[in-house]
């Protein structure tokens, strides 16, 4: 394990300028995650958790401050560089699953591989991933519409893992699931963590936060503990 943190935020501020006044979604946030850590992020609604995740995942850029991923500042990257970076280091898991509804479960997982290698995957990697998250073979050709919420979230975890990312960003992964499903998803995430993956997870549920090594709490765009 190297000493360089996987994620490093220095004085990051994100301001949404609205007609009704500026909204400080993030206010001078300093924060870092070491390799292999499982960090839970909690806080009230509207406190800036999703904004934080988007900025770490390079989907969004901060208004000021520096974001370093594996020691590299993302601030000066071009959009294409950010996309490559996103492709190689970040796996997103969303509350709303965000699967592509036109594609089957299998294709949804295959898609990042297609994007990366420009050809079909013959190494059975997609199947292995789907097996690992507990999607049975006969479900793989179903579209997200035909899958339960828990199954969709499993597919989206498999998709996030397809490119073997440096870290996983989970924005309320269990937010749309009942407690039994949540438990299963958390077992998967916890298992991934035990395999050595870095996981950042936003959650409202203190129970799910217990899986994490440490929990940070964010309020009004500031980290309070």
């Amino acid at each position, binding site marked *: 394990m190297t000493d360089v943190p996987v994620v490093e935020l220095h004085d990051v501020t994100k301001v949404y300028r609205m007609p009704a006044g500026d909204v400080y979604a993030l206010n001078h946030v300093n924060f870092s995650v070491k390799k292999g850590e499982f960090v839970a992020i909690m806080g009230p609604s509207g406190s800036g958790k999703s904004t934080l995740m988007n900025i770490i995942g390079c989907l969004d850029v901060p208004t000021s401050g520096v974001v370093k991923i594996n020691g590299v500042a993302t601030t000066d990257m071009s959009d294409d560089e950010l996309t490559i970076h996103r492709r190689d280091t970040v796996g997103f898991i969303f509350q709303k699953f*965000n699967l592509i509804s036109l594609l089957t479960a299998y294709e949804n997982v295959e898609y990042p591989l297609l*994007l990366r290698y420009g050809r079909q995957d013959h190494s059975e990697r997609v199947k292995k991933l789907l097996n690992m998250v507990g999607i049975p073979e006969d479900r793989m050709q179903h579209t997200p519409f035909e899958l339960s919420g828990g199954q969709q979230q499993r597919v989206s975890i498999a998709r996030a893992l397809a490119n073997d990312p440096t870290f996983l960003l989970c924005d309320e992964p269990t937010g749309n699931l009942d407690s039994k499903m949540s438990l299963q998803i958390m077992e998967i995430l916890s298992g991934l963590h035990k395999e050595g993956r870095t996981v950042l997870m936003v959650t409202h549920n203190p129970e799910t936060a217990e899986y994490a090594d440490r929990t940070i709490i964010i309020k009004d765009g500031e980290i309070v503990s």
Partner: protein
Amino acid sequence: MIGIIIGVFTICALGMVGAGLQENINDTIADNANSLMISSIEEKHIDGNVVRGLSEKDINDIESAVKSVSSNYTIAVANSGYKNVKAGRDNAYAMVLGISDGGLEKVIKDMLEVGTVPKGPGSVVILSEYAERHNLHINSRLSTTNALGEPTTLRVVGIMESSTMTKMMAMSQDICLLFGTLDLHRNLLGTKDNLYGMCMVIVDDPYLLKPMANAIERKMNGKAYKDSDDKVTITNSFDTIDSLNDVLDMISIFRIALSSISLIVAAVAIVNVMLMSVKERTREIGILRSIRTFKRQILQMFIYEAGIIGFIGALIGVILACIAGPIVLYMMTKSLSLMLAPSVFCYIPIGILIGVAVCVLAGLYPALHAANLNPVDAMATD
């Protein structure tokens, strides 16, 4: 989609019809626009009578003028006059056209549908339209009177299709044209003081006609007395066709304008459709961006989509045009062989290319819009 279909349809159909007409006119030029007709408008006083016509000397002058331009020509003299003829029970007013030997062959041969070139004072070639109307065939007889007023019969030895020249001669559809030798004319209408009504210069290359006409003009009319009128008038069949070409040029400008308008309408429609499609898929675009899709890949996706819409639309447009174009062309020219002319045919790939190009260009803005969406905002929409 409808927009692009109509746009491409307009381009192709109008293009085909235009090119077809052009081709038709070119054919006509090659077939018919190969002659000058010179007739005298000078009054000559012979034996105390005032007559009009070209004398031997005039013909010689014309020939020497023509020769100064090119030696590749046929010169012929012709006399014409009107006569009543009877085909079976039908009466018709006929224009009798007697042409000297070399010329007769030249004028008739290519246009002949059946039969032979007439020889002697009793045989004629008639136009196919007239033959059809009066149910005449080869060896049918026409009865009329000769120059002395005695009844005589004429034998149909050939039937020819009508051309620009024959149309110019006959002026009206009701007049039947009888082509024959000078002897025929003499037989039916009598001699006219050794003057000829008309001189024809026939060439293979229609572009020689203009300089020849100028040379004749200079030779015959340039020398005329100041206070007298011109000696001859020259009808250049190429001129008629030239002016037709001018009209065609105007039509083609109109045609371009019309297709451009429909293409602009099509482009606007495509922009609209594509923007809707981007809007519908905003969320998907956000997801794609979040899972490592490049901006330019999003761009490509939408441009492909526009291109495919364009291609399918253009294909349908072209197919429709391929149905409508020939029908219109057939109605205008009564010939389908024009469809196979390369200049007509080439509107098919041109139409498809333009259709796809317009769609891709029109799709560019929505595609850029899609590619530049903020992924976070895009995913937030439902």
